[in-house]
C-alpha cells in the first residue's frame, strides 16, 4: 500500500467508529494495514475525541460547568452523529455546531430553556470571529451577568429569573477580544 492510501486509511480508522469496527474484524484483516496496531489506533481515536471535547469545553466553559457529566455524554453523541469540521476555524465551528446540537436538546425538553441563552452568549464571539463582525446585538430572555453568576456559584439554572435583555457585543480595539454590555428591558 502506498503512503497516500495508508494515510487515508489511518485517518478513516482514527475518525470513523464504523470503519474501525469493520476493518478490525478477522474477515477483512488483509485490507487493513493497521491491523497489528489496533490498540494504538483505538487509543488515537479516543484521544482525538477527548482533544476536540477539551477544546470545545474550554470555549463553552459555562455550558460545560452547567451540564457536568452530561456535557461529555452529549459531546460523544454529537461526535458520533456528525462529521468533524474542517479548515482554519474548525474548532470554532465544532463549538458552534455542538451548541446547535444542544439547543435542539433544549427544544426537546432535555435541558432548561435558559441554557439557550448560555449557548448564545458563548457562541456569539465565535460567530463574530468567523464572520469578522465588529458588532453584534441580541435579545436574551435572561441577563447574561446573572446567568454567569448562577452557573459559577451554583452550577445550576434552577433559580434563574426571566428578564428580557438587549445585549451588545463589540470587538475591542486593543487586542483584548470581544466585550458585551447588557441592557435589561423589563
Amino acid at each position, binding site marked *: *500500500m*502506498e*503512503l*497516500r492510501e*495508508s*494515510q*487515508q486509511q*489511518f*485517518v*478513516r480508522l*482514527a*475518525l470513523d467508529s464504523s470503519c474501525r469496527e469493520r476493518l478490525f474484524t478477522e474477515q477483512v484483516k488483509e485490507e487493513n*494495514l*493497521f491491523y*497489528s*496496531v489496533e490498540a*494504538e*489506533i483505538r*487509543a*488515537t481515536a479516543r*484521544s*482525538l475525541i477527548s*482533544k*476536540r471535547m477539551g477544546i470545545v469545553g474550554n470555549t463553552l466553559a459555562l455550558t460545560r460547568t452547567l451540564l457536568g457529566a452530561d456535557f461529555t455524554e452529549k459531546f460523544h453523541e454529537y461526535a458520533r452523529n456528525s*462529521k*468533524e469540521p*474542517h*479548515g*482554519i*476555524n*474548525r*474548532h470554532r465551528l465544532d463549538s458552534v455546531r455542538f451548541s446547535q446540537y444542544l439547543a435542539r436538546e433544549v427544544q426537546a425538553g432535555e435541558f432548561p430553556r435558559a441554557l439557550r441563552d448560555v449557548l448564545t452568549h458563548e457562541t456569539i464571539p465565535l460567530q*463574530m*470571529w468567523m464572520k*469578522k463582525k*465588529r458588532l453584534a446585538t441580541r435579545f436574551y430572555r435572561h441577563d447574561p451577568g446573572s446567568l454567569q453568576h448562577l452557573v459559577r456559584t451554583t452550577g445550576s439554572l434552577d433559580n434563574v429569573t426571566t428578564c428580557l435583555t438587549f445585549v451588545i457585543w463589540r*470587538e*475591542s*480595539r*486593543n*487586542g*483584548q*477580544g*470581544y466585550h458585551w454590555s447588557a441592557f435589561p428591558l423589563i
Partner: protein
Amino acid sequence: MPAWLGGIPVLGSGLGFRPPWRDSLIGRDAQASKVDFLEITADHYLDAPRWKLAELTALREHFTLIPHALDLSLGTAEGIDQGYLDKLAELVEYLDPPYWSEHLAFTKAGGRELGHLAPLPFSNEAVDVVARNVEMAKRVIAQPLILENITCDLTMPGSHLPETVFLGEVFAAADCGWLLDVTNLLINSRNHDRSIGAFLDEAPLERVVQLHYVGFARSSSGRLIDNHGARINDEVWDLMELILQRASPRGAILERDQNLPEFGEIMGEVGKTRQLGREAGRWN
C-alpha cells in the same frame, strides 16, 4: 551543513506566546526582560479578525516573533492545501522572522482533518513526500523552514529506516533545519524503550536550529504523556543540558498549553534555560 543555517541569528531563551500572558509581555512586566523572543502559533492568526492581528502588531514591537504552524501537513502524500499555505505565507511575510517552523507529521488525508499531528513512516517514500511539499512551501515562503520531531504513540507500518537516518534524509532532501523538541524525544525514548544516548550519537544534530521543551505527565502505567501542562521535569532539564552541549541551537522555546501558571513561574523556567544556554556557550 548548508550555508543558510550559519546565517540564522542567535535568539536565546524564549517563550511560546499564550494570551493570558499578553499583558505581562506587552506591558513589559519587569520579568518579561527574561524573554529573548516569542514563538506564536501561526494558525491563531490566519484569517483572524482585526483585534487579534492588533495583538500580533503589539507583540512584534517588543519581540522577534517566530511563526510556528500546526496544520500545513507537510507529510501528506496528496500534497498540501494551497489556500492554507497562501495565508501562512502572508503571515510569515508580515512577521519577517529569521525562520519559521512546522512539524514532521501529517494532519490530513483524503479530504479529512485529524486535528492532531500523526507520525510518518520512516521510509524513503515519506522523505520524498516531505521534500516535495516543502519545495512547494518554499515557492511562496522565502524564510528558512525548520521541522519539529513529534511524539509517536505508534510506529507507522511501512517504516524501514532508523529514525535518525529518516530525520537526516528529510532535512537534507528538504534542505531545512531541525526544531528539536527535547520533551518529545524524551517521551518517545521512554515509551518505546529506546536509548537517548544512541539516538543523539546518530542524529543529525548539526541541523538543529531551535529547541522546544515542556513538562509532561505520567500515566498510571508509567507512560509519559505529552500534555503540555506541567512544570519542566528534572529529566527534561537534564536532557536539555546534554543537548545544549552537543548541538548549537540559536534559541529554545518553552511551551505550555494546560494549567497555565503565573507569569513569574514561567519566567523562572525561561531564566533557567537562558542560564543553561550561557553555560554551554550557546547565547549570552
